[in-house]
């Protein structure tokens, strides 16, 4: 049975038509890319961290998420942040066995299936150290 106590809020964004989710409690701020210099934090691009097969990835509306890391805060450039969704535990599935085996070092933690949409949920600790 779905309960609000079994939910987690995720910030949903899209890169190359793929939807990703990051837990909102790990995000302290969303900053436009052109204002990031004021923040004085290390910044990396999301697609480089997750092993995108394309070398060039076109960002439509790039924004920087300031992430509360275990050590220093860090910025990660994402694209098209569009929503904050409450995702129930029942809507979260492990990656299929074949994908887990072959993308063993992937920072993708699990997959949410919500309203017939597939969202790749990120393990931010893994992502930041990846």
């Amino acid at each position, binding site marked *: 049975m779905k309960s609000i106590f079994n939910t987690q809020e995720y910030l949903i964004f899209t890169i190359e038509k793929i939807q990703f989710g990051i837990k909102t409690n790990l995000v302290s701020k969303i900053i436009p890319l052109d204002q990031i210099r004021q923040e004085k934090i290390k910044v990396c691009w999301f697609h480089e961290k*997750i092993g995108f*097969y394309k070398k060039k990835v076109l960002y439509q509306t790039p924004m920087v998420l300031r992430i509360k890391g275990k050590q220093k805060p860090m910025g990660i450039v994402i694209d098209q942040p569009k929503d904050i969704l409450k995702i129930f535990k029942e809507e979260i599935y492990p*990656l299929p*066995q*074949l994908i887990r085996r*072959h*993308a063993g070092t*992937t920072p993708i933690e699990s997959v949410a*299936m919500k309203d017939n949409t597939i969202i*790749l949920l990120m393990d931010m600790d893994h992502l930041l150290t990846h």
Partner: protein
Amino acid sequence: MVTKSQKISENHGSPAIKNFSTDGQIVDVNDAVITAVIFTLDDNYYAFNGGDVSGIWPFTKINFVPGCPGFILGIVNIRGDLESVISLHVLLDMEKPDISNKTRIVIAEKDQGRSGILVDSVQDVIDIPESSFNTSLYTHEKKFIVGEAFYRDKYVAIIDLGKLFSQIKVQTWTQP
């Protein structure tokens, strides 16, 4: 002794089975049959053992998963189940396929391996006498192709899903 067509018609008689080409060979009436899923890739015919196939689905949007090797196309939601999808076109060094209304995703499972497999079309699901599979002394560059049979006068390459999954497991693949 009867011909294959006599034996199959007597025992089953389904339209799909009647389509099976016998070429007039003589077989034993006690010959065991194997259910084969006949499908095409790039106009060539292939077959899986039907016992290893749990479903055949129309094409649905495949969600790419970054970080995977090129033969893994991504994941799909099939009636609430999350399945990976692999490309035999990539594994068999073929061109990327065009998606059409005949494109199917075959869900296959064997020896602890499970995945959806993208094929150009599924032609038939038929019972074929075990003796008509030529697997002894058969060698192919791709180790998961283990034999051949004939379907409607066409050569059909038989894919062993256990060997396919185990080869995928041990081999290192590069991204496209």
